[in-house]
């Protein structure tokens, strides 16, 4: 179901970048709930390497905005323990590529504590991590492996593409009773500003958003790839009169199957755009879900426009690796012309 960010009574807005909206969400929830604590590498005085936790240390002090030693498994394990003591920890992993040392704590524990204990214990933690390429970062700094987390039952996985969503989704994630992996498109951290409600509000962890309506093809994407996808959609509309519906998934687990399938029933054609390697990426899950539920509507193969099945190259070549508007456009046309 498509749903825009829904501010509550407070109708004031600020013009924020995505990273400022993340900071605003943390500020808002830390103010509202003293059990919310932020921990991670360099999140304190330094305000995070991307400034996502800027000023929180000054505002809430070193007991609630905590620089940890350099150890990701320790960070996530600690967050689980904090949650068990009744707190609401928000752990930052500095880059998604550095979440792997914590993989065991995430997939063996955060995700399973509730089911293991038959509902007695749980791990309401948020693991924030900037993800994705395009900023000329060194090796390991451009990971986009959301499928790893989507494949693990018990986790929720969220990925905003706009400042207003970033705030509302992060607030919802902090309040969510289940562990959330919250992936922030660092390519969009400062890409643009948007009016973001000043007050507190949630964007539910359930609803995809239709960013552009169209009848010819459904294009599914999320996070940083939403922007080149929208550009491509405009291009094919202008140049070829092809109207693409762009669906921004926002929450990757659980998927909003209803919105995904409804859009496809309308268009009968689809493409999925993601940065992660194509093979066993989330594009496969979306394509398969669609054909499971709407194969009779299908007029063409569902196209995956994705990262190649290679490691992300060093930055001189990353623009070739990432799906660019031109690749997306080409994939849309191929699918529409099938």
């Amino acid at each position, binding site marked *: 179901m498509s749903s825009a960010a829904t501010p509550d009574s407070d109708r004031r807005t600020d013009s924020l970048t995505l990273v400022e909206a993340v900071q605003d969400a943390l500020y808002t929830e830390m103010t509202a709930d003293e059990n919310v*604590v932020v921990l991670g590498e360099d999140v304190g005085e330094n305000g995070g390497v991307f400034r996502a936790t800027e000023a929180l240390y000054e505002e809430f002090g070193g*007991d609630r905005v905590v620089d*940890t*030693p350099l*150890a990701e*498994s*320790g960070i*996530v*394990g*600690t*967050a*689980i*323990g*904090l*949650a*068990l*003591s*009744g*707190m609401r*920890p928000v752990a930052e992993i500095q880059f998604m590529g550095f979440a792997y*040392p914590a993989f*065991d*704590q995430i997939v*063996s*524990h955060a995700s399973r504590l*509730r*089911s*293991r*204990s*038959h*509902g*007695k*214990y*749980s791990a309401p933690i948020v693991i924030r991590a900037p993800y994705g390429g395009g900023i000329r970062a060194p090796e390991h700094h451009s990971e986009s492996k959301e499928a790893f987390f989507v494949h693990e*039952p*018990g986790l*929720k996985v969220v990925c905003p593409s706009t400042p207003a969503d970033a705030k509302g989704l992060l607030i919802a994630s902090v309040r969510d*009773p*289940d562990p959330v992996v919250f992936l922030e498109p660092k390519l969009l951290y400062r890409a643009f500003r948007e009016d973001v409600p000043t007050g507190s509000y949630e964007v539910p962890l359930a609803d995809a958003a239709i960013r552009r309506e169209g009848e010819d093809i459904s294009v599914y994407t999320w996070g940083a790839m939403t922007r080149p996808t929208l550009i491509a959609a405009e291009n094919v509309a202008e140049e070829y009169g092809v109207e693409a519906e762009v669906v921004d998934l926002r929450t990757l687990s*659980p*998927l909003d*199957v*209803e919105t995904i399938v409804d859009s496809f029933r309308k268009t009968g054609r689809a493409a999925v755009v993601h940065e992660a390697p194509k093979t066993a990426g989330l594009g496969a899950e979306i394509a398969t879900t669609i054909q499971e539920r709407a194969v009779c509507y299908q007029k063409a193969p569902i196209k995956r426009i994705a990262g190649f099945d290679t490691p992300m190259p060093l930055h001189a070549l990353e623009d070739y690796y990432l799906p660019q508007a031109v690749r997306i456009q080409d994939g849309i046309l191929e699918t529409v012309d099938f």
Partner: protein
Amino acid sequence: MSTQNEADPHVSSESTQRDEPIRILDDDGNLLPNAEAPSLSDEQLVSMYEDLVLARQFDQRAISLQRQGRIATYAPMTGQEGSQVATSYALEEQDWLFPTYREHAAKYVHGMSLPSLLKPLCGLRDGYAIPDDVNVLPEYIPIATQVPQAMGMAWGHHLQDRADTAVLCHFGDGATSEGDFHEGLNFAGVFDVPAVFVCNNNQWAISVPRDQQTASDTIAQKAAAYGIEGVRVDGLDPLAVYEVTRCALSKAKNPTDDERRPTLIESVQYRYGAHTTADDPSVYREEDEAEAWRQKDPVDRLRNFLYGEGVLDETLEDEIDDRVDSQISEAISTVEAAEADPAHIFEHVYEELPDRLREQRDELNALREKYGEEAFSEVLE
């Protein structure tokens, strides 16, 4: 033992050499010269003894249940129950326990029922649905992963000014090789949390002996790497383990100015039996290795001590044996009457059942309806 001033008089002078494990009882259960028994009442001492007896009987019964195919793989604790029972006696009710797959007795003493211990061994996860008034986590199977979590919970209590609550975290000698042991203890040192880390050094990690696990002389000395105190205790001496743990917990909650809260206790033990019922230790170690340790058996030692103190006699021993026996039998009956509901598979994965899980549950139910339960109990292989 230097965890607390008041502790010093209780322990034997033997322990002044840092590497020698602290002891209170000699191998036969006599109080060592210069050592003092912990201030436990006679009732507490006898009750501790009863729990030791229960632990040992439980172990034997569980092993035999496994042989009969009535429970799955079981990790025995004979030889280690003295340390398990004693560490849990040192806990206050509000303190939290992080156990592994082997700490059956530690869990029981800290409030878990016998049936709840057995249920997971029958494949029933509601044994881990621990009651609200019992501060025990479900057992940790991935080695050492509990260490950072225990640290985190202790830190949470600390941040919430719950100074009366400590966390006690168990793990084995093998666990000290894992990254999570290191990360958890390093955090504990940095954040100075009210936690006690108990390494049940039973000399073996399945088939790997202690000296192939690490080249450090003792495990206690690893504490130096984290700026916290390390202490070695004779893990077959329940009174010494009790006292050392009690002092460490008390320091965790209420340290003096120059003390740091966390302690790493190396409880020096021996795994008399197999790693689990699936393991055959004769493949990798000499049978007679156990002998030296059996000479210091924790159950015998505490019994002898209690006989010496005049608080235990044969009548009471028989009474205890009988009580323990029927408690265990009753627990087994309760558990064997329990059944698993396939719907449990889908419950508590998330707080709210997501659509896809609802669909999958309905799909399974439809198949059960259509083909009957037998269709699901076919051996797969």
